[in-house]
């Protein structure tokens, strides 16, 4: 597999760009990004998983979901859809909130762009997140850092467990 996840962090533009190519048609990838049942299956990075409370993929609509930890702890997130061009791109506002979708003012709000491009070998998706300040961007990367660390530790745990069994 050469489909490597690329992350480009631009300090001057206060943005992070995450891009990846998927071996599937634009139509299928688009569905995976816009339908609740499909998003639930992948949006939460294991060991977390995503649970949709409400989803209305339309301009002015939003996706309200929880990131659920293995212990059942929930972090709520909301994505407001600002602009949609079918099978091409959509624009959103992304923030942390409570169960009812009320903004958590302590955490940064980002504006984002999800761009879908048809490639010879599949579909490229570019997700650009722009933050109001550099500190906000830093905070988000740090949070991803924590999740990433947990993933690493989880894999390590699994490895240790497997060795014990043998």
């Amino acid at each position, binding site marked *: 597999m050469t489909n490597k996840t*690329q992350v480009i962090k631009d300090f001057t533009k206060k943005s992070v760009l995450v891009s990846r190519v*998927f071996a*599937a048609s634009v139509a*299928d990838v688009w569905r995976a990004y816009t339908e609740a049942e*499909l998003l639930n*299956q*992948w949006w*939460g990075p294991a060991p977390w998983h995503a649970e949709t409370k409400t989803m209305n993929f339309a301009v002015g609509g939003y996706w309200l979901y929880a990131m659920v930890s293995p212990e059942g702890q929930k972090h709520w997130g909301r994505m407001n859809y600002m602009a949609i061009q079918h099978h091409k791109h959509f624009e959103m506002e992304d923030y942390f909130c409570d169960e009812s979708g009320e903004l958590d003012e302590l955490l940064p709000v980002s504006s984002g762009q999800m761009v879908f491009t048809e490639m010879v070998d599949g579909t490229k998706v570019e997700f650009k997140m722009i933050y109001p300040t550099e500190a906000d961007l830093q905070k988000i990367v740090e949070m991803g850092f924590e999740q*990433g660390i947990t993933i690493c530790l989880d894999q390590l745990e699994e490895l240790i467990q497997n060795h014990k069994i043998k």
Partner: protein
Amino acid sequence: MEIRRDVFQAIADPTRRAILSLIAIHAMTPNALAEHFDTSRQAVSKHIKILTECQLVQQQISGREIYYHFNPNKMKEVADFIEPFRRMWETKFNQLDYVLSTIKKNKK
């Protein structure tokens, strides 16, 4: 206000990034470095001071000259920092690969 000095602050400035890419090729004296910039020598040395405080630049005295060296180990901190973030997305995308393969299968 407390002044923050870390690698991220260091590379947030375009001039400092330019300085780093210059000295990453080979060590340079303050004069040689200043020639690459339109700004005053003073401005360049202020940037150097910040880069030194962040340990991205090391100074070495050779005879009568000072040479600025790039410290790749410190720069690695930036790469290491972004790595878990990338890994988090990689995990999500691997899950998405699986979801996409099931969409395909269900169509058949």
